[in-house]
């Protein structure tokens, strides 16, 4: 096997690369299938070719990135972070909805040509930046105040994407943030306290449940004994969010409110997002064990299935390849995450370890939210499925992440735990 020996000589993490290639191939096949519908639509029918072209480009970029070093990547975190924040600001002024929702501005385009979503780059840049900031701290943060730096790093792009608004990417940022804090050694009690206002916000809709949660939180604070000011702040923050949740609810845009309500009961909006979710469940459910056959899904062909090539592409997998296809796709994702987690735990330094874990976390949130959405386990927030959903900029960024992981893996091979994991 001359090819594999070449890879081995180059210290390439062959399983990781193979998994990513399989996922991308699988994804492009599904994008191709998504274009096979009964009423001809040239726009979607050719999407798989564009996706393939971008994949080719992605491989080139990947090769370039793997030529560099982890130190170079660490160095580039700052400029990338600054650039992506600048782009996020820019997109608020000149961004377009790109046909998804009129009020949403996620896309940068020049002369009508869409260049991409800065939020995708921001996820990568923020992960690297956060890894850098957390790696620079000698001790794991011991109090909430200690967390101000990482929270600021995540907070700036988070606020900017929420301003678009892009709830899905916002959730990904939160996922990255918590996962990396956890990986950096922050104690779980601290993480719970950090998350508590957000949890209060959700639970506030049921006074009883919120009450129970609040008592548990108080018990946690008394037991963990943070600084008095911190404890007070956490408690107060929870009371405030618990009380103002209904007010915040009113501040949400109607379509956002609707999406959250539809998550609870898809039948309330059968012509809008509830329809999407219902049709998606029908498509997946009717796929059965073996599916209706590649390109043969009737829900897809007859266009009952919305957003077939982007957000709901996993429904096509479910309909056409059945439970076996779904299991295969999920197994590939699980393998990717396990392998990447291994890369993170074997990295030779704090930065690469944290960066690797952050990338896993970002993908993980994407997969859980997107796949969960197709079965109405998650609200419809419109975030794509890595390697599957059609979208050049996302595919490119995903492959850069693969490249970073490959590089980290190459440098960390056989090294002992770098940050005392």
């Amino acid at each position, binding site marked *: 096997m001359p090819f594999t020996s070449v890879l081995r000589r180059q210290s390439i993490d062959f399983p990781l690369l193979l998994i990513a290639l399989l996922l991308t191939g699988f994804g492009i096949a599904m994008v191709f299938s998504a274009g096979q519908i009964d009423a001809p639509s040239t726009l979607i029918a050719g999407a798989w070719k564009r996706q393939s072209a971008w994949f080719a480009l992605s491989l080139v970029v990947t090769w370039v990135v793997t030529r560099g070093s982890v130190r170079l990547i660490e160095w580039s975190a700052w400029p990338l972070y600054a650039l992506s924040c600048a782009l996020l600001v820019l997109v608020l002024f000149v961004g377009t909805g790109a046909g998804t929702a009129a009020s949403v501005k996620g896309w940068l385009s020049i002369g009508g040509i869409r260049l991409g979503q800065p939020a995708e780059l921001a996820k990568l840049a923020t992960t690297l930046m956060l890894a850098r900031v957390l790696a620079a701290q000698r001790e794991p943060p011991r109090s909430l105040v200690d967390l101000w730096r990482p929270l600021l790093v995540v907070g700036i792009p988070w606020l900017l994407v929420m301003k678009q608004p892009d709830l899905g990417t916002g959730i990904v940022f939160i996922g990255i943030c918590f996962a990396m804090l956890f990986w950096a050694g922050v104690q779980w009690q601290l993480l719970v306290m950090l998350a508590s206002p957000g949890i209060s916000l959700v639970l506030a809709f049921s006074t009883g449940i919120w009450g129970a949660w609040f008592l548990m939180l108080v018990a946690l604070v008394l037991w963990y004994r943070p600084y008095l000011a911190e404890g007070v702040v956490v408690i107060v923050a929870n009371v405030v969010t618990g009380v103002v949740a209904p007010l915040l609810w009113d501040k949400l845009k109607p379509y956002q409110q609707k999406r959250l309500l539809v998550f609870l009961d898809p039948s309330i909006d059968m012509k809008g997002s509830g329809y999407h979710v219902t049709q998606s*469940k029908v498509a997946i459910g009717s796929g059965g064990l073996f599916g209706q056959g590649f390109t043969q899904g009737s829900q897809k062909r007859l*266009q009952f299935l919305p957003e077939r090539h982007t957000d709901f592409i996993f429904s096509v997998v479910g309909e056409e390849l059945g439970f076996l296809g779904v299991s295969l796709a999920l197994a590939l994702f699980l393998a990717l995450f396990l392998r990447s987690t291994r890369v993170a735990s074997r990295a030779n330094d704090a930065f690469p370890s944290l960066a690797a874990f952050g990338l896993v976390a970002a993908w993980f949130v994407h997969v859980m939210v997107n796949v969960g959405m197709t079965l109405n386990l998650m609200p419809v927030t419109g975030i794509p499925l890595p390697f599957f959903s059609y979208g050049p900029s996302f595919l490119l960024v995903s492959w850069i992440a693969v490249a970073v992981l490959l590089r980290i893996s190459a440098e960390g091979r056989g090294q002992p735990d770098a940050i005392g994991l």
Partner: protein
Amino acid sequence: MRRARVARGLLFASFLALGAAFFRAQVLESAAYALQAESNRLREVPLPGARGIIYDRKGEIIAENLPGYSVSILSPTEDSLRSALRTLSQVVTIDSAQQALAVRRYRRAPTRPAVIFNDASFQVVSVLEERRVEFPGLIIQSAPKRYYPDGEAMAALVGYTGEISEDELARDRFEGYKAGQQIGKAGVELEYEEQLRGREGSRFVEVDARNRVVRDAGVRPDVQPEAPPPLRTNIDLDLQKYAHDYFADSLRGAVVALEPTTGGVLALYSAPSYDINRFVGGVSSAFFQTLLSDPHTPLVNRAIQGTYPPASTWKLATAVIGLQLGLVTMDTRMEQPCTGGYYYGRVFKCWDKRGHGDVTLAQAIAKSCDVYFYQLGLKIGLNRLLAGGVKLGFGEKTGIDIPNERTPTWPENTDYFDRKYGARGWNKSVALSLSIGQANNAQTPLNMARFYTALATDGRAATPQVVAHEPERKQILDLTPEQLDGVKLALADVVSRGTAAGARIQGLTIAGKTGTAQVPPLKDFAWFVGYAPADEPKIVLAIVIEEGLHGSTAARVATKLMERYLKAQLTMTSVISD
């Protein structure tokens, strides 16, 4: 490595949960989702089944099916139906009533294509086919259309078909019917709906998310519609048509012809008539209004719904009751000979002012002497007269197998008069009027014909049957064979010595009784009820001509009809009398 283990554990747990959710949806609940997917994309388009053909006794067609086209539209919502109708109306004429009807049809059954035209012209169909792409969801298909080759002759008998109404859908009888289906609305079509109903087939078309028909689905096999076996009736189409031809347009009245031993309905006609073909596929409201507002009430089926005083045709009933009670024989004379009238509180006139003199019962029947029957009626007495009439079947429907027969008027006992006029509001002289077929006695032509089937045979009255079943006969005459022969002889004698010689038909013996009913303020109605041939009856016929003035008018028509039916066996001379 603790954190790595926690992370791995979380990963496994999350994927296990996802996998379980997919397992549940795709393996455990897959069938339900598959069904939902099918109902998403497959639309059942009903293929109307042809109704059973209706034949007459000789195999002539009374009702058949012609090829036709229906145009309907599949819509996901009422709004889209409305907009489709708007677009369609730019190409073909759809008036607002039709549009409203289509919307109503949609509301009743949103998953079925809403019918726009039940019976589209070929021109409409070709225009629509040509521009098919512009109209997603449009369904044009063949729909057999009911046709009655002799529609005007058949109106009273065969009924017609139409789209099932909301009221009818709610009835138990039409359980399992769906909105938009055609059902029998009257006559044989309604009575024998269950036998005539064609089994609806269905076709499946595959539609996309916008309800555009993508293709005929090969997934589920189409179910071909089926027509039931034909329905054979007792009708003699030739006689029926002849009756229609013979009733001039200006006449009102009815004809019923029965087979005496089986009750088979040979003809049943009501004039004026109308063409039932105009009711097929939905009657136009203008035409329906014309029929409704016509003073001659063509929508009333006079043969089974018109009740008229039977006049002299009823005298046979009085005679039979008297004979049964043993009060008279055919040779009995009354105390008072006929001098043109009879005094009972006041003078009751005989139709012949000159008087018939001293007559026997046989002669009284022959000459239709009112005075004789006044006295016979008094002899019988009101109570026995009423009871006798009830026993002869004058108070009830015949039970013919077509709907909406009217119950004739015959008082079951004297309570009837108390109820109607008050206890002191009437006196026993009503017996006199009743015994000559006037007063509170109103019979349908069908009921009179049924009574005469008993006279024509062995005293058993046959239940009239449009469709051939086992004959049903009921002994209503309680006469000895001698008495019955006497009555028959008298009926034949009636004829040989009678006054209606103008209606005579060479070579045919006809026994019958004319009647002239007084229906103030209208002119007299003409009755004839009789049978032929007199010695071996093959046909019993009752006829009423409203404002026909004299029974002989009816007799002339009746003999012509009988002759037509019996033309194969003409041997005897015939005489008719009042």
